[in-house]
């Protein structure tokens, strides 16, 4: 009985009507054909024999699994008809094989229909001629190892690799790799923010960190290693231009297929600008808080002073409100210039304008200067007191009195004068109120200069003499 080996295919070959093929009935097969058929039936590797000019197909169980639904129709068929979708490819195989030569393909892609539809299949293909009793090539034997899964897996890896490269290129982050215990930096791509590390380095902490930050960073690393959890930290770094900056750094542990820690892979973004902005904001908030507290203390001082010796509560309330308005307007003056300073002209005009709308009765003259916020505030408060007094007792208490405010710069000193005329005759007061104390002592103290109130009979005169270095703004 032939063949007496070969599992399912052995049975199928025995039962097949070979007389209807160019090979002829089994009993007429030459010994060479029988030998090679038995050899391939014994092999666990997918093998197909293409016998004769037409390449009549004889194969084993392993090949039948490869052939899918094309089996069992392939058995005994001519190869160009059996695999009609790759007839050209097999014509070449037959031509070369029957000429006594071999063919080998690695990961050869062919489109085959094995499961009802055409699909790409990759194979390692090895073709060798099979000789007959006369020593001439009578067929071609093919070892067919399908590599589709391997090829697709490789493609997935390559695609993932390309995507990873794209990701690292798309991100402006600094990318780094560390040894499992972080003693060695394997690589750092600094993105021109930080100096690159191209070869493994154990001096990376010296290169990138500030000495005073090392202990805290090491503690965060130790914790990440102990828990095998991502390392995440905002810390200072030395940047490529030599400056100290801030990064948000995050690294994840990378393990091999056995779960063993291979390295840490990290990305760090430069957050220097953000940290600076946050610091600045904190500073501004602190300063604002201070100014608010200070302003409240000023309001408290004005209230205490206004109400302390008030003979008439209604009158005192009006004075208090007016002083608060003066303070508020002076603040507006400063916020308009972002607290960096204000114009001398505006400071004076804003302080006196609410009390005297008639510009002819109030002249303001002098070359404008930029004055410091503190000078503006003190001057505005003093001018408010002078204007209030003029309205109550002085030049603005009748219908034709005048106030002339003027200033000059002489050498290193700013001289400001408030001069009233055409008002009622002035008599020197017996005591000093809040207003005159504020003007004479307060303004003088703030400006580091001299402020004098003269009670001339024809009108009050106030002379301010201050060093220019104190009053001018930045």
């Amino acid at each position, binding site marked *: 009985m032939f063949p007496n080996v070969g599992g399912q295919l052995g049975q199928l070959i025995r039962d097949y009507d070979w007389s209807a093929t160019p090979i002829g009935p089994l009993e007429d097969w030459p010994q060479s054909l029988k030998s090679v058929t038995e050899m391939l039936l014994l092999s666990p590797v997918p093998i197909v024999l293409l016998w004769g000019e037409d390449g009549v197909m004889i194969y084993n169980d392993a090949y039948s699994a490869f052939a899918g639904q094309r089996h069992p129709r392939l058995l005994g068929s001519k190869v160009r008809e059996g695999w009609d979708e790759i007839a050209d490819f097999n014509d070449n195989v037959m031509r070369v094989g029957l000429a006594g030569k071999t063919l080998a393909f690695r990961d050869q892609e062919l489109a085959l229909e094995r499961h009802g539809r055409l699909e790409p299949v990759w194979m390692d293909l090895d073709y060798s001629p099979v000789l007959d009793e006369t020593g001439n090539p009578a067929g071609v034997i093919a070892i067919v190892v399908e590599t589709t899964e391997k090829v697709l897996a490789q493609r997935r890896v390559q695609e993932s690799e390309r995507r990873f490269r794209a990701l690292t290129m798309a991100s402006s982050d600094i990318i780094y790799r560390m040894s499992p215990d972080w003693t060695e930096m394997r690589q750092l791509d600094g993105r021109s923010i930080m100096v690159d590390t191209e070869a493994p380095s154990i001096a990376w902490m010296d290169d990138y960190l500030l000495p005073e930050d090392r202990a805290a960073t090491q503690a965060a690393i130790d914790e990440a290693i102990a828990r095998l959890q991502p390392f995440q930290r905002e810390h200072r770094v030395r940047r490529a231009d030599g400056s100290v900056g801030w990064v948000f750094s995050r690294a994840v542990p990378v393990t091999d297929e056995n779960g063993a820690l291979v390295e840490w892979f990290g990305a760090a973004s430069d957050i220097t600008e953000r940290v600076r902005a946050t610091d600045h904001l904190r500073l501004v908030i*602190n300063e604002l*808080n*201070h*100014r*608010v*507290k*200070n302003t*409240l*203390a*000023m*309001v*408290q*001082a*004005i209230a*205490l*002073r206004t109400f*302390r010796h008030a003979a008439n509560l209604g009158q005192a309330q009006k004075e208090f409100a007016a002083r608060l308005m003066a303070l508020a307007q002076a603040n507006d003056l400063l916020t308009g210039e972002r607290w960096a300073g204000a114009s001398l002209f505006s400071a004076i005009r804003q302080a006196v304008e609410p009390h005297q709308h008639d510009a002819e009765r109030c002249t303001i003259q002098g070359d404008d200067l930029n004055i*410091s916020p*503190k000078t503006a505030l*003190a001057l505005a*408060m003093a001018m408010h007191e002078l204007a209030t007094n003029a309205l109550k007792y002085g030049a603005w208490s009748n219908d034709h009195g005048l106030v002339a405010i003027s200033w000059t710069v002489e050498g290193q000193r700013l001289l400001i004068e408030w001069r009233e005329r055409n008002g009622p005759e002035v008599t020197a007061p017996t005591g000093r109120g*809040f207003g005159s*104390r*504020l003007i004479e*002592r*307060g*303004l003088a*103290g*703030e400006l*580091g200069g001299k402020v004098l109130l003269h009670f001339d009979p024809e009108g009050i005169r106030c002379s301010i003499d201050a060093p220019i270095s*104190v009053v001018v703004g930045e």
Partner: protein
Amino acid sequence: MTLRILVVEDEMTIAFMIEDMLVELGHEVVELAMRLPEALEAAQRADIDVAILDVNLDGLRSFPVADILIKRAIPFAFATGYGAAGLEEAYRNRPVLAKPFLSDDLRKLLSQAISA
């Protein structure tokens, strides 16, 4: 006991309020300095028992004034809108009053400064 006091405060209205409060408490304000140069000069020279210092004098810190007072072994306290957080490390143990404050707070601050 009447204390002779130096007040360093750059805001004139607040300076006068502190002065009024101290006078009402029965003390004497012998110097009122609103700027750093005057404050340094006064700290150097004035015959005082205690000083009350604002921290920010038109953008300058008053700590050099404190240093002079330390050398002269004159007690002092801070009154500042920044509160204790605005003090440099070396002065953190000094009594400090956050603005705004009441007359009674000022009285306690003075006794703290004197007994420190």
